[in-house]
């Protein structure tokens, strides 16, 4: 039985959702994953008496029951919501830029957020209200675009989604400037930029605002048993729907036929699985660079034109004291050198100048996530160049240690809490770690960068054009919705449904 309607390559967030959508559409599905666990970055690991979250800071756009966001709706329709226990995140974020005297703790809830911003920056209210108003309109426009698979009626767009079209080509900074938002308020409202990995002169406003208002209006949630709980819930759902999941199974080649379209997948070891439809939950660079032969020049050029986004680094600490004892006050922090995101982005190009961090103390959302009297933290940063490519194997451990120390020093200096003497367990993931587990080029964790020309809007509008190879579609952080948990889940939703359509068309 080596024939499937569709093979999903990679059990990351996009691949898992795509597999469920395919099964719901009646397809016979095989999901192959080269690692022995599902989830890609959405996993957890044990060290001593701690179980660390591998990547998720907070799940956006899920929201509590009764104020559910699009991700909750998606999970409902996938049939996985109730398989996972959820805990709410207490506050939106605390952003600290010590050199500028900026230290703001921002709450969830639109009104609370605007009020708090006004208290920090008197005179910011009107611009903040307009920010949220634009955000709601942009969400509506995106829902329309999604419902049309990117092929939209331009008169409807202009008539009903005018502000989406009018803001659609501008960066975050350009729009905030037009809204006459005071600089300090912009600095606070822009703090989420590192979640999208492009600075605010490049990053599309519509993309940014649609993320921010989802966070602020719905609140954020986290699975109680780390993101591994979501990944295993999805696996259970796939099996309930009759899908096959093979772990420790690497897809090495995608076989194409005379029309250049998909005919099968060759697994490591040589076994051929016949299929006419592949969902690749990995980067086009890997698929077109290594897994396929005879790739047309048009695709080679389009692939080479893309820019890799941030390469990941994450330090995980298990501390032998409670968050209260250590003076760790908040759930998640953004610690920057400068609130000018373009300047910060430059500093993040080099190992020696980067200690910017998005840091989480999970106990502040979920007090029992570690044993009584302990706490659990993770510190994430991105590298905006291939600087880890310069690190030789013999210098690797030292380099890890150096950056770990920089991150700890920065956290202690910026927040005033003292954690160094309480480190019972430490684990450090670098771009090499992500390259190893997920195979991403240069250890990237953010897919292709949201450059001004390659942001969310043109990618969504070009979904049909980007579908270049019959039977091959992409899901995950490199695809049309860009990176991040909710984006990757939605990419799987879109790609899975499109592939169901492809299968039905073939009859």
């Amino acid at each position, binding site marked *: *039985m080596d024939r499937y309607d569709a093979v999903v390559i990679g059990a990351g967030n996009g691949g898992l959702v795509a597999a469920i959508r395919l099964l719901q559409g009646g397809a016979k599905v095989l999901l192959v994953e080269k690692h022995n666990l599902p989830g890609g970055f959405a996993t*957890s690991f*044990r*060290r001593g008496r701690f*179980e660390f979250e591998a990547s998720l800071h907070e799940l956006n756009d899920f929201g509590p029951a009764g104020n559910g966001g699009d991700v909750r709706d998606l999970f409902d329709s996938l049939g996985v919501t109730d398989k996972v226990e959820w805990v709410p995140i207490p506050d939106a974020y605390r952003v600290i830029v010590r050199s500028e005297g900026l230290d703001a703790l921002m709450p969830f809830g639109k009104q609370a957020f605007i009020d708090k911003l006004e208290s920090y920056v008197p005179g910011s209210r009107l611009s903040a209200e*307009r920010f949220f*108003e634009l955000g709601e309109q942009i969400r509506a426009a995106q829902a329309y675009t999604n419902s049309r698979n990117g092929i939209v009626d*331009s008169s409807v767009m202009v008539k009903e989604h*005018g502000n989406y*079209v*009018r*803001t*659609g080509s*501008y960066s975050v900074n*350009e729009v905030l400037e037009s809204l006459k938002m005071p600089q300090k308020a912009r600095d606070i409202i822009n703090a989420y930029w590192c979640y999208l990995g492009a600075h605010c002169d490049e990053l599309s406003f519509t993309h940014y605002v649609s993320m921010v208002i989802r966070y602020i209006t719905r609140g954020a949630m986290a699975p109680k*048993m*780390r993101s*591994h*709980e979501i990944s*295993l*819930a999805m696996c259970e759902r796939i099996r309930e729907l009759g899908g*096959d999941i*093979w772990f*420790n*199974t690497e897809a090495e080649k995608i076989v194409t036929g005379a029309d250049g379209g998909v005919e099968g997948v060759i697994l490591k*070891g040589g076994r051929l699985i016949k299929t006419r439809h592949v969902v690749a939950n990995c980067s086009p*660079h890997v698929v077109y*660079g290594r897994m396929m032969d005879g790739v047309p020049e*048009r695709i080679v*050029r*389009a*692939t*080479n*034109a893309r820019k890799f986004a941030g*390469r990941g680094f994450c330090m995980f600490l298990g501390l*032998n004291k409670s968050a209260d004892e250590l003076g760790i006050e908040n759930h998640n922090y953004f610690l920057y050198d400068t609130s000018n995101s373009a300047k910060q982005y430059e500093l993040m190009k080099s190992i020696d100048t980067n200690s910017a961090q998005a840091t989480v103390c999970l106990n502040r959302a979920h007090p029992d996530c570690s044993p009584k009297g302990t706490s659990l933290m993770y510190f994430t940063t991105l590298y905006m160049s291939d600087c*880890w*490519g310069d690190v030789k*194997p*013999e210098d*690797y*451990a030292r380099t890890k240690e150096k950056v770990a120390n920089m991150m*700890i020093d920065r956290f202690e200096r910026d927040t005033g809490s003292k954690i160094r003497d309480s*480190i*019972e*367990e*430490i*684990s450090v993931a670098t771009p*090499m770690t992500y*390259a*190893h587990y997920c*195979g991403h*080029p*240069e*250890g990237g964790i953010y897919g292709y960068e949201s450059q001004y*020309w*390659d942001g969310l809007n*043109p990618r969504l509008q*070009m979904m049909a*054009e980007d579908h270049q190879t019959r039977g091959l579609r992409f899901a995950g952080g490199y695809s049309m919705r860009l990176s991040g948990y909710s984006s990757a889940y939605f990419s799987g939703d879109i790609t899975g449904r499109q592939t169901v359509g492809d299968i039905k068309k073939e009859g």
Partner: protein
Amino acid sequence: MAYKFKRQVFGFMDLLRFKKMVPLREKKLSEGSAAPIPKTYRVNQTAEILHPGTQSAELVSVESVTADMKTYTFKLSKNMMFRAGQYVTVGHAVGGSFVSRPYAISSSPYAALHEGKLSVTVKKAGFFSGWLYENAKPGDIFVIGDPSGFFFYDGVRDRKNIVGIAGGSGITPFVCMARAIAEGSEDFDLTLIYGARTQADLAFKDELDRLSGDKFRVVYVLSDEKKPGFESGFVSADIIKKYAPASYSVMMCGPQAMYDFADKQLASLGLGGKYVRKEANCIGDRDVKPQKYALTVHIRDEVFNITANSRETLLVAMERAGLRVPSKCRAGGCGYCHSRLISGKYTIAGGDKRRLADVKFGYIHPCCTYPDSDMEIEVPSGE
């Protein structure tokens, strides 16, 4: 009154800009390089050296270290870099089965990185180590796993001075550390307290003596012999106090009986928690009435009906049946054998080291799980 966004002097300019986004992206994509898409990247190449995965390696020498310990040296097919104190699995076909065991690496990191040489030093003690001792000869091809485990110095977590406590074949990771300190691939101070029954049971004594210097010191403790130049008895609080520097972290590798004894000694010195780390030992058989159970194993789309024994782990049952299944730490901790329970009752050896969601959704680690009934499980391929 709805807000209407406008940036350009003439609002239609904002619309025009929007319309140009797709043509602009089309143009940018068409202007990408026509050169072949890279097959790999520098970070990914380094990752291949840090995590080379399972590889074949030729056994190039076998040396006796003591009456019951031998050092097996392999020529790797892929050079690797590891942390001193880590282990690899060494695997080979024995009879109709593929068998592998984790062994601490005794050779230095740079030997593996620069020369592709890797040694393990193994005491003849169990099934596979006994087979190695009797059968392994130069020229044989083995399967070597990824460097693994967390029994290594961490400069952020640990004090700069490490007191190592080694018992029996637990000396091997410390030999690696002493060699690593000497070659500069590790940077910490190690005071090694090495317990054995008699002087003849001490492995690597000449080399350890030779490596002794500023950053590395060694003390021998003989339990069954009194000799000048050696401490005698067990590794007690008094001996630790006598040789340890003022402030230190402890790393231990040896049999469980040694851990039980040393824990008490260290507690009396006020040491525990983050300052004491132990390397895990492989899970052995359990002492219950022998009973046979039917074990159904799914691997991809194949189903195998085999027999499990109540005294042995599910992993051993699968290996005995000749199934090629994942195995690494054999102590329940690394999760490499992560498998899905379909049905059956079981007991986990030692502390349950599974993830919370694994318990919730019914996943087990066969290397530390004994069957208490007929069972059905789904296991990833170990090919």
